[in-house]
């Protein structure tokens, strides 16, 4: 046992060393978040101001709304994107024709690569007053809706278009995990007379349950990242109320240009929250499901 333990330590070494240099060591720079940063004085000699920068953030009058938007949009995105990716992976797994399987798989992950600068224009056109969507609902006698100007619809559009962009890419992990299920289980089940649907429920899902839980948890780290590039390209003043998130506020306030320490403080705060979420979910899973996610 001891001998193999040393081998394991050796295997970990390269990664740990690189992380120490490029991830842990630079974290000293977080001190900027606690200073009145002056580039000329540098991070060691700039004036120390304690929690001032953090206090500023909480003094932003609409901070509660902005935070709420950020979290609710992020959570909805996580749930729906992972859910759609999972369902899509399950559906694709059932497809028998090899050619279609591979072609479809390749096509659906392409939107992941299209930047929101372009997608924004496409989405705006589709949901515009005389766009496709309004044409379709017009056929049912519904009056045109200004989707991108409505605080009730906007979050939904953010989530929906984000799902559409990411489900293909997100499905890849599930597809890989699906290959790990023993085929003989399916054969046994079909001999027992289980329907395809039942097989999915009782064999497939449990077979990749660890992956599902893992993905949920890994996505939790993005709970405060509701997707700034997308929001910046889609939002407008009419939907600030429901669409303004932490990153877009920071952008409008020009923090990155003018006050680097504030941007750093925001980043630090986000990391702390992510960390808490991850730790919480780990311990909950441990206590209640007796399962250590990692």
């Amino acid at each position, binding site marked *: 046992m001891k001998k*193999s*333990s040393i*081998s*394991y*330590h050796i*295997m970990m070494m*390269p*990664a*740990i060393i*690189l*992380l120490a*240099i*490029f*991830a842990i060591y*630079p*974290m*000293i*720079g977080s001190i900027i978040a606690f200073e009145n940063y002056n580039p000329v004085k540098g991070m060691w000699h700039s004036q120390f101001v304690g929690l001032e920068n953090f206090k500023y953030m909480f003094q932003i009058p609409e901070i509660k709304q902005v935070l709420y938007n950020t979290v609710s949009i992020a959570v909805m995105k996580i749930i729906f994107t992972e859910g759609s990716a999972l369902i899509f992976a399950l*559906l*694709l797994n059932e*497809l*028998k024709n090899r050619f*279609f399987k*591979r072609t*479809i798989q*390749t*096509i*659906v992950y392409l*939107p992941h*690569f*299209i*930047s929101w600068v372009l*997608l924004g*224009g*496409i989405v705006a*056109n589709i949901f515009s007053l005389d766009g496709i969507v309004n044409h379709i609902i017009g056929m049912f006698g519904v009056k045109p809706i200004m989707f991108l100007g409505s605080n009730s619809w906007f979050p939904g559009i953010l989530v929906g278009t984000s799902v*559409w962009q990411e489900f*293909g890419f997100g499905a890849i*992990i599930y*597809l*890989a*995990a699906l*290959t*790990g299920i*023993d085929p*003989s289980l399916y054969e046994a089940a*079909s*001999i027992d007379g289980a329907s395809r649907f039942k097989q999915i429920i009782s064999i497939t899902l449990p077979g990749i349950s*660890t*992956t599902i839980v*893992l993905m949920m948890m*890994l996505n939790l*780290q993005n709970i405060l990242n509701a997707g700034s590039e997308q929001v910046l390209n889609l939002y407008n003043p009419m939907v600030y109320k429901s669409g303004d998130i932490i990153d877009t506020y920071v952008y409008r306030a020009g923090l990155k240009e003018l006050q680097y320490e504030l941007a*750093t403080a925001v*980043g*630090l705060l986000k*990391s702390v929250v*992510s*960390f808490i979420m991850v730790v919480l979910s780990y311990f909950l899973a441990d206590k209640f499901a007796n399962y250590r996610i*990692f």
Partner: protein
Amino acid sequence: MAYKRKRYTLFDIIIFVVLISITLITFFPVVYMVAVSFSDKSAVAAGIVTVFPVKPTLAAYKSVIKDNYFFTSFGVSVRRVLLGCSINFALTVLTAFPLSRRDSEFKGRNVYMWILIFTMLFSAGMIPLYFTVKSLHLLDTMWALVLPGAVPVFNIIVLMNFFRNLPKALDEAAVIDGAGPWYMLLKIYLPMSLPALATVTLFSVVGHWNSFFDGLIYMKTQNHYPLQTYLNQTIIQYSMVSKNMTKEEIERLTKLSDKTVNSAKILISMIPILLVYPFLQRYFITGITLGSVKE
């Protein structure tokens, strides 16, 4: 004897139809972008381009490819992917394996795990990282693009999870045969994990290929830029600007009316990924043969 179903059932048909519809919806913007990239820019501005190019022209592509830096940056990105992904692959495998061991086998495994999680969640930002790279004299070298992201914690966790799900019987058999950790990793675990390996490789390739910001801050000369950094610069289609126009006005004009160049840029970057993915797809086959594990 397994019962082989030869006919397609209603279930199959429904699934097929659903999948095809989803695919078409996802495919439409790509088709649109292709059409835009080959269209006349004023036609695009008027919004009359949908599925087919209007007044077809290669102008957008010509402006993107027009100087040699396009090709050098392409080469830089290819080299970066080859080097960076190899490093990523080695580190992912080397790190995921020990972490997939139980705490009883590998004391300290939990500590390492939490260290990795910590580095995945916390980052001090661009400036401190820049200083670090600078003090190591790595500025303007390929290493600056490849080392800071050398340890892909997300991928490691994914692979680790996959390893953990492999049958315990494998371990037991190997131990009985007297196999050490290296043998287990290289001769047993790796061959069994092709789908997961293909997955993390894909993520690594995409990550390196699409990355532009590090190229921007660490590299100093145009012929060291990776492709996306090069493309990220403003590229105007033709000299339509007046003598006495400020840079800001020029940029405003470009943004106002030229989607063709943007589309061309995105499509050009997509092509290599389109080639890599099908290549990796063949590893997504139902993999585990339990023939090696007999009770």
